């Protein structure tokens, strides 16, 4: 079964298609969750990972065939963050998380779509290791120190890549939305 066929079957309410996706992506989704909440609480990880697949089941009608993996990762990430907050724990403080931008609107669907596109483009324009560092930090909330250790580079180098990534994102948002 191909992914597009599995998604089609999923949209038709076929639970075996959901099981097919679970077989395929449990390892990946688990990795996303563990990156955010840690690997010490298996029951919590299982709960969040299954939540991601449950949301996939609920929203299958809205997902493109090529986007299931990314969709699952995004849902798992946001669920993991919600979980941390429900436990009274905040995500780690991020290196300069706030961008100051000229005003633009995202109140309508067009504005939201443009913003999503600009963010995606900015991330895609980053090359390795900048993209990985940027996503580890801002998507998975990994602290600079951990990223430096995992990627075997000085903390200042990590911070430099983060700054460049922020500049690219800011530049693209300003260009496309204001």
């Amino acid at each position: 079964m191909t992914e597009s066929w599995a998604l089609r079957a999923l949209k038709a309410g076929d639970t075996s298609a959901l099981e097919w996706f679970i077989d395929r992506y449990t390892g990946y989704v688990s990795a996303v969750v563990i990156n955010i909440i840690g690997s010490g609480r298996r029951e919590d990880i299982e709960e969040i990972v299954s939540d991601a697949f449950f949301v996939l089941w609920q929203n299958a009608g809205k997902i493109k065939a090529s986007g299931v993996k990314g969709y699952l990762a995004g849902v798992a990430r946001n669920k993991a963050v919600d979980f941390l907050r429900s436990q009274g724990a905040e995500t780690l403080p991020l290196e300069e998380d706030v961008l100051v931008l000229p005003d633009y609107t995202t109140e309508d669907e067009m504005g939201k779509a443009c913003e999503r596109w600009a963010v995606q483009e900015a991330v895609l324009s980053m090359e390795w290791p900048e993209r990985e560092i940027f996503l580890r930090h801002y998507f998975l909330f990994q602290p600079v120190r951990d990223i430096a250790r995992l990627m075997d580079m000085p903390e200042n180098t990590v911070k430099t890549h983060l700054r460049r990534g922020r500049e690219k994102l800011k530049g693209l948002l300003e260009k496309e939305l204001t």
Partner: protein
Amino acid sequence: MEKRISELLSDLDASVIEFPESNVVSADRIKEITMKKINENKRALHVRSKAARIMLIAAAFVMALGICAGAYMGFTQHDDPAGVLHSFFEQESYAKGDRIVEYENVEVDGEIYEKLKTNMPAWERMPLDKAVAEKYIYPYVYGMGETMTWEDYTLTVEAMVYDAPMGCGLLYYTIENPKGVEGYDVWVNGEVNWPVSSPWYAAFLHPEHSYIDEEQTTDTKLYLCSYFVTVRDWGDFEIRLGDGGEFKRANRSTLILELPGEGMDSISLDGGNVTVSPIGMSVDKEALGLSLTNDIDHITLRFDDGSEYIVEQDDDEAFISNSAYAISDSDTHLSCRLFNSIIDIDSIAEVEIEGQVFKAE
């Protein structure tokens, strides 16, 4: 203006990220938990206006007598069985003929041909043969009337069709809120669900699919049709109505329904391994030597007059699914499905399942 980067990335198509996969949790365990959530989150449904008015009066009467929700009230035939069945089998699909037919280019001996890739019938609900329905179904269309409330929402069970031996049925529901019933989603096939962003939700503990009744639904009242399955013991037949915004969805009301114990006529093939009733069929996959991990791709009913009803076809030639709802239960190895039509079982000549043909006696 200020924007948090971490929030901007929350909508990122995260497939751009590659990580080493983790084996901390098993896929089987995730399947188990996820399927349980799906069963818990099953939702509610519908009825025609005349039937709805009648049953709302009945519901109000029950409440006035102080009878608690879920109390056993016996089962009597609904006053308007044809009206109830109309919403399940006669309405156009929500997709309104958006039959999906797709082709892909294939090269054969240097020539490019179009090959059929997708032939999806938009989950049509078939025209109702009233004579067949009256013969097989009408006595089993029960009037209900149970109701429950959560905040401003009122969920009312209007009617039920249930085939106890087969373990499947149909349920009519309404969900009303004078302030509006926004928050639900309708998929292209008409199925209703409550996304995580919905401030409220309705759910069944048993497996089911619910479809919107477009003809009747308004901004303040949902009319819904549920196709449900009870092939094994999942406990009480419980419906929930509650706070959809809460992580665990624990803030809710519950309604437990009694199910009738009798069933409609059915035919039994291959010593009982295949059973076909007017509204659905069940197949013992283990007994037939079929895959226990995948559902059945090919089922066709053939009738005495030579016509046939393709229930499932999933192969290179076509993708046809005329099951309104189907499950393949991993415990009992039963594959159980509800049809999108009412079947004249006395006219069935044979049933073909994955190439195995079973003649009707």
